């Protein structure tokens, strides 16, 4: 894979420097068959330093995950070497099976095959709470 140019795939740009591994993990990119490049600490006019992730295939990307981990990213969809679409993730109202509830008293710890659902309860402070026990999820800011 040529890091500079992708023919068909996705470039996640403007990732806050140091956040790319976390995104890689949340987006389950380790399970992909295609090549994925993580470029860290790139000099950026806008941000000082930034990370970039390049995925060598046009996969279905969970934008909610991006919105949760780092809502300032830009998603570029590349086709035949040309950017055909540019998307900005939004802070999702709900996260389904992205993060797990850490409260040991929560029903999600014992009930089999139950969806892990978190709701945005405070947009300003980006607070998500488990819909079952209302425990606060650690925001990616922390």
């Amino acid at each position, binding site marked *: 894979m040529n890091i500079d140019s992708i023919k068909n795939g996705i470039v996640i740009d403007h990732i806050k420097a140091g956040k790319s591994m976390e995104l890689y993990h949340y987006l389950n990119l380790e399970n992909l068959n295609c090549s994925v490049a993580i470029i860290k600490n790139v000099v950026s006019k806008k941000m000082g330093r930034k990370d970039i992730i390049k995925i060598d295939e046009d996969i279905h990307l969970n934008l909610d995950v991006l919105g949760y981990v780092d809502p300032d990213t830009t998603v570029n969809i590349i086709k035949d070497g040309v950017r055909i679409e540019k998307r900005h993730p939004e802070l999702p109202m709900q996260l389904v099976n992205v993060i797990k509830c850490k409260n040991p008293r929560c*029903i999600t*710890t014992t009930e089999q095959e139950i969806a892990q659902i978190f709701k945005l309860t405070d947009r300003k402070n980006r607070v998500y709470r488990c819909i079952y026990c*209302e425990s606060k999820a650690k925001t990616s800011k922390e």
Partner: protein
Amino acid sequence: MQHLIDICDLSVAEIDRLIEKSNDIIKHRENYSEKCKGKKLAALFFEPSTRTRLSFEAAMLELGGSVIGFSEANSSSAAKGESVSDTIRTVGCYADIIAMRHPKEGAPLVASMKSSVPIINAGDGGHNHPTQTLADLLTIKREKGRLNDLTVGFCGDLKFGRTVHSLITALSRQNNIRLILISPQELKIPEYMKQEVIERFGMPYEETDSLEKAIPNLDVLYMTRVQRERFFKEADYIRLKDSYILNLSKLAHAKADLSILHPLPRVNEISVEVDDDPRACYFKQVLNGKYIRMALILKLLGVE
């Protein structure tokens, strides 16, 4: 189909109607004795809570219905590892309505997602206990004649006390409620309750560690138990426990029309000498709990 999982599942208007209905039940008991004839309540108590279970059972029996269920997880399929979802789908085949208590937080919500009949949360761990809050609200309404324009004191364990958080949340939707939060430093109300409820809805409040200083201003005093196990050091518990005991000498400084509530069971935080004072409402609160559960069962079953 409606469930009651969290007190906020009910609008203020719905709570008002439940209170009206309870008052009507209290006045005209005979009119309700056959309202739920042929209907069954399943009381699924995955952890024991005798008083809550008895309240639900008495409520259903007084409506002419019958009760099935279990009173601890040991004797139930949960002991064999059955999921809440499966238990609920099974019980839904036998019962018209389910009251469920479970040690895990959120279990009744999971149940409501899978249930074919209405679910009432009868307590999920340290999380919610909405029918207790309904009993509290009915008691305040009956004693004070209103749910607004009140100075309400909460005393004791404000950190872990779910009944406290739930009642404050319910009161935050009323007008002109002033809070006085009385607790030791170790058991102060959590920050999120302040930010997400009290301050968010603009409720005037003050925090104090002195019940004596606070008591003259109160219209309602909600007492809770200060539990020994909440303290790291036995010495702290011993030092503090007496400051949060209500007795006649502290009560001497209170208003003549104060209403004293307690979710019960109590240990020693209200001296027995207070029981005969006309301001003690905690046993009426138990009775009110049964009446408002009757009103709730009628509502969720769609019986007029």
